[in-house]
């Protein structure tokens, strides 16, 4: 599946040996999608850029933290989302959560979505944006309650109650 001559794992080995060209290659491969994904979690571009920078500086300093199992991409995302949380903690919080255009899907789209995903997609999209943000942070990004609280700028207790509400609502949808 790897396109270049070197796999991501090879690049990390080379980075451990002080090879900056390998870091450059890894950056070129992964920085673009990391930027897009971070941007979806945080509207502040400077914060996203800082998090991206911190991520690759961290990779350069401690490439051996990658334990050799699993996708390098997943490992990088784990670093990036935590760097973003650190960056947000350091700066006064402005408007960090992306203001999404909450376009109501048409009836047709609703049906199509239902076919594509079972009805999970519809059920997820029917959650309020606050609940969805919590589901995204904890389930998809694999963050702890405290980390999710840091990312979303809300108390840990609120993360827990929102997660409970989301779970209850989803359960009800499928009941």
């Amino acid at each position, binding site marked *: 599946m790897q396109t270049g001559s070197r796999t991501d794992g090879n690049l990390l080995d080379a980075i451990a040996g002080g090879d900056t060209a390998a870091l450059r290659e890894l950056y070129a491969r992964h920085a673009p999608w990391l930027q897009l994904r971070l941007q979806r979690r945080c509207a502040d571009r400077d914060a996203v850029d800082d998090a*991206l920078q911190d991520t690759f500086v961290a990779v350069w300093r401690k490439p051996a933290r990658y334990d050799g199992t699993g996708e390098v991409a997943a490992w990088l995302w784990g670093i990036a989302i935590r760097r973003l949380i650190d960056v947000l903690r350091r700066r006064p919080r402005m408007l960090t959560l992306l203001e999404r255009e909450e376009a109501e899907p048409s009836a047709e789209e609703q049906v199509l979505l239902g076919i594509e995903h079972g009805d999970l997609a519809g059920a997820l999209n029917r959650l309020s944006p606050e609940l969805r943000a919590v589901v995204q942070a904890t389930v998809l990004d694999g963050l702890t309650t405290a980390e999710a609280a840091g990312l979303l700028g809300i108390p840990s207790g609120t993360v827990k109650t929102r997660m409970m509400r989301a779970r209850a609502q989803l359960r009800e949808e499928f009941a």
Partner: protein
Amino acid sequence: MSWHVDDALLERYAAGTLDDAWAFSLEAHLLACEECRARTVPRADLARVETVWADVQELVDAPRRTPVERALILLGVRDHMARLLAATPSLTPPWFAAVALCLAFAVVAAHGSDRGVAGFLAVAPLLPLAGVAAAYGPWLDPTYEIGLAAPMRTFSLLLLRSSAVLLTTTVLTGVAALALPNVDWRAAAWLTPALGLVLVSVALTTWISAEMAFGGVASCWIGGVIVAREAGDIYVAFDAPVQVAFATVAAVAAIVLTWRLHTFQTEREA
């Protein structure tokens, strides 16, 4: 891989208009699919990606901070100052380890006999002196040549380093002194001699070479301690009159030093 992200979906994802359920699937897929990751590249803000890379590169190329440097920055010292200080040979962990070992021996000896306390007192003032000497000259300092070319005036740098060394070594010695048996006035008796020896040496370097100045002053101290011991009571070398004398010498040396500053500066720069 049975499924790949189509372009329209990627476009909406990048624009931030894709709904969350789709975005969740897409993100999960991207982690596992290099091909689709590659297709996100043209959709990212590549100008920003390049700007961030320039910053990463700058940080990666910069020499890494030593633990001493990081500690200094934590204490509020500015970056460039921290680097200059951390490069001082007598402000490095090996140096601190050597001083600690030296003090440990002296303290252990002091517990052995009453004369051991005298040994501690004889050695203690020499440690800051050695530290400042090491901070000073070309013999141990790998950044000596760089120091000469530093934008900071040579003497300011030396004074800064010497002060930092004096402070750290004195703190270490002070802590060790608390471990002496029957802590009394003698636990602090080395302090004034130490200050006197250092200031006199530094003042002397404005006339003679650093080797001569530090070597000479250290020899005088050792000689004085031996004479006092031969005379029957080594503590004579730490008596109140001697303390006053050292304090006076330190003050005079400080004044001479200030007066000699200009000469010193031009001689070092010549």
